């Protein structure tokens, strides 16, 4: 445990100092850290899943508090929590199904709950699972009762079944951890390969003699464009430089090195050039539950211009960027203001800073936000590693990847769970 705690503290320090650049790096390191936390965690025989969930939650709370702007960290924490719940669920239903086969000859556990009240745990578990899934004809016909919290019922279901399961429990505890760690490994692999999976879809979207516009620099966009280039599509790219960090310059250099015809423009020229552009392709910092995008600063302007000229605005985002939270006042609450020195040279403007000291309030304010919020109605398409989607489809992906109980990471005193 002390081992893990030092790892956690180290990571928290890095997050606080903003040492890790990019949501992919953040997500990966969070996942690796949580894997170590889980593997080192001692879990009791009863309610193993709850113990794991508590441990991960405690660590997750500290991580999100260290850097609230980096939403990828919170996303991964919630993904891991969801994995724990799902694995526990599948183990429970597996165990109960095993029992079922021995006690009742026919009928799988998913149907006919009214005849077998003893199978309430399985019924509730299946019911819980189906409420997360979108309503389908099958679930409508099954007429299941509403679910309550899953882990306690499953654990109470375990307890109620008596001694015959005690032998299963020790294997089950090892199995739960093992399954969870395997799933987390898969998650890490997904994070690592998200660029490749998105880039595979490039050929469907970029055609010959197209003109693409992008702003700033995003590794996903770079891989996407290069994949299309490798499939022998010839197209041109306009890169807006993305003041004040000018990361567009880096992207332009990279693209030219890979042989793409690139033009570097200033951000103010975006409106002038957008009528000559076929598609706008950008990366995102995070995608919110309503389909809105937290993107590098300047992209709201580009999205508005694209809407005016009926140019498709395509956002590339790996699944680790998908956040189950709703953006309330994102311009202020999910934004970070950086140093004014990126905009103004302190030496030249030192005399401006002096004015107004007599009155007490400084006369000159400099605003340098990092992120911009793009509302979902301006986005035409999201390309994630599992395919292209509408902004209005984001809620379905969130239902697949996250549990509703995990949205608030803070522990409340009178928690339902």
């Amino acid at each position, binding site marked *: 445990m002390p081992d893990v705690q030092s790892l956690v503290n180290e990571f928290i320090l890095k997050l606080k100092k903003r040492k890790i650049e990019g949501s992919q790096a953040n997500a990966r390191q969070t996942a690796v850290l949580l894997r170590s936390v889980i593997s080192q965690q001692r879990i009791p025989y009863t309610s193993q899943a709850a113990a794991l969930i508590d441990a991960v939650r405690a660590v997750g709370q500290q991580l999100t508090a260290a850097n609230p702007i980096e939403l990828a960290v919170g996303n991964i924490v919630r993904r891991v929590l969801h994995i724990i719940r799902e694995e526990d669920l599948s183990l429970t239903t597996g165990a109960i199904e095993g029992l079922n086969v021995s006690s009742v000859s026919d009928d799988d556990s998913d149907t006919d709950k009214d005849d077998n009240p003893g199978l309430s745990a399985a019924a509730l578990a299946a019911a819980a699972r189906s409420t997360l899934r979108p309503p389908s004809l099958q679930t409508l016909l099954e007429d299941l009762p509403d679910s309550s919290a899953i882990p306690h019922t499953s654990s109470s279901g375990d307890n109620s079944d008596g001694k015959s399961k005690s032998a299963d429990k020790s294997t089950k505890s090892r199995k739960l951890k093992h399954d969870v760690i395997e799933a987390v490994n898969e998650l890490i692999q997904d994070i690592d390969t998200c660029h490749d999976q998105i880039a595979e879809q490039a050929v469907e979207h970029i055609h010959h003699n197209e003109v693409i516009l992008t702003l700033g620099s995003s590794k996903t966009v770079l891989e996407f464009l290069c994949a299309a280039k490798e499939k022998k599509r010839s197209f041109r790219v306009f890169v807006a430089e993305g003041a004040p960090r000018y990361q567009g310059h880096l992207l332009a250099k990279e693209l030219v090195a890979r042989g793409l015809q690139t033009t570097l423009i*200033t951000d*103010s020229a975006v*409106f002038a050039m957008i009528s000559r552009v076929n598609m706008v392709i950008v990366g995102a910092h995070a995608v919110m539950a309503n389909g809105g995008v937290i993107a590098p600063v300047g992209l*709201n302007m580009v999205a508005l211009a694209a809407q005016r000229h009926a140019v498709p605005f395509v956002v590339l985002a790996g699944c680790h960027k998908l956040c189950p939270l709703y953006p309330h006042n994102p311009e202020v609450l999910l934004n970070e203001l950086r140093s004014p020195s990126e905009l103004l040279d302190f030496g030249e*403007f030192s005399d401006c800073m002096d004015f*107004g000291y007599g009155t007490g309030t400084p006369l000159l*304010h400099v605003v340098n936000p990092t992120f*911009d919020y793009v509302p979902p109605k301006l986005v035409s398409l999201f390309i994630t590693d599992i395919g292209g989607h509408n902004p209005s489809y984001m809620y379905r992906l969130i239902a697949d990847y996250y549990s509703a109980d995990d949205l608030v990471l803070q522990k409340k005193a009178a928690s339902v769970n």
Partner: protein
Amino acid sequence: MLLLNLDPMVFVRVVLEVLSELDELWGRCLVWYFIRPGIPGLVICSSSTTGFFDNSKTTRLMLGLSWGSICVHKSPIWMHMTACSGMAVEATKGSMISRVFPFLYILYAQSRRFGASYALPDLMWQYLSGDICGGKARCIAMLKAFQEVIQEYSTPLEKTLSRDLTAKISIYVNFLNECRPISVSMGNAIRFFKNRIAELPLTMSESEAKAALHSYIDQFIGEKIMMADKVIVNHAVTKIRDGDVLLTYGSSSAVEMLILHAHELRKKFRVVVVDSRPKLEGQHLLPRLVREGISCTYTNINANSYIMHEVTRVFLGASAVLSNGTVYSRVGTACVAMVAHALLFWLLTHGKSALACLSEQIV
């Protein structure tokens, strides 16, 4: 003799001494063209050409200066020609006069085209290097240069003043256009000026005509530019109320006058200055406003959707307003206008006004 380590002022003095022997007119032009761009470039270039000469400080200086002007900034093609001809002449290894004379002649001939004054070369240089920018400033500079041209103009024999002067003005305008395409305000001024020249009665003597044209230009600058600005500012200042947050983009002289005037009228407001590359003109406007005691916020154009939520009025300067109502202005103005317009529909309850564009030359 190597010029590499020469102090710039010594260098200038040496050059002027040498050139004082030569014809004063093109000597002036020469100095103006070559010395102005940059001493360091000249020194480097002149030192590199010393290898081509065996003697003659004069020729070394001539060629060094011409190379210097080529290397430092976009020099007209004839400078390249003179340098090459000088090099070719040098290769023949004749006497100093034969070496230098064609070179000097071409320079002299070019300088003669601009008349005796170098107001126009000065103006060309300022446009090329971007010293003067902004529709109003360029227009006024051009008109002042025309005044000087008229001053030193003399009608050649067997030609009428109006026709000859109009032809000369057209040539000058072509030159200016090559340095930098003329703005709409400059085009209007030129048209006005040519009309006035054409309307001059033939019975007028040359000096009277020149005086009349001089006063016409003064009148144009006074009425159409300066007075118009004042009237615009008087109208626009009524739109500013206490508690307003004004947003402006880049640096427009009309908007600056408006803000300062409103501040003089003791209105309580603050200003957001939005700036963008490549010129970063907002950084010139900002100290001027802060010095007057106006509370300012400075931001990049990328952040204008962040800042637009607090803004109540947007004032934009214009370079031209076309007859269908389209506004033609600095690059990026359209972005600011678009974001303001988009937010207008979001915040219907806020008193966010539409845009006000200030321009002095509407035709």
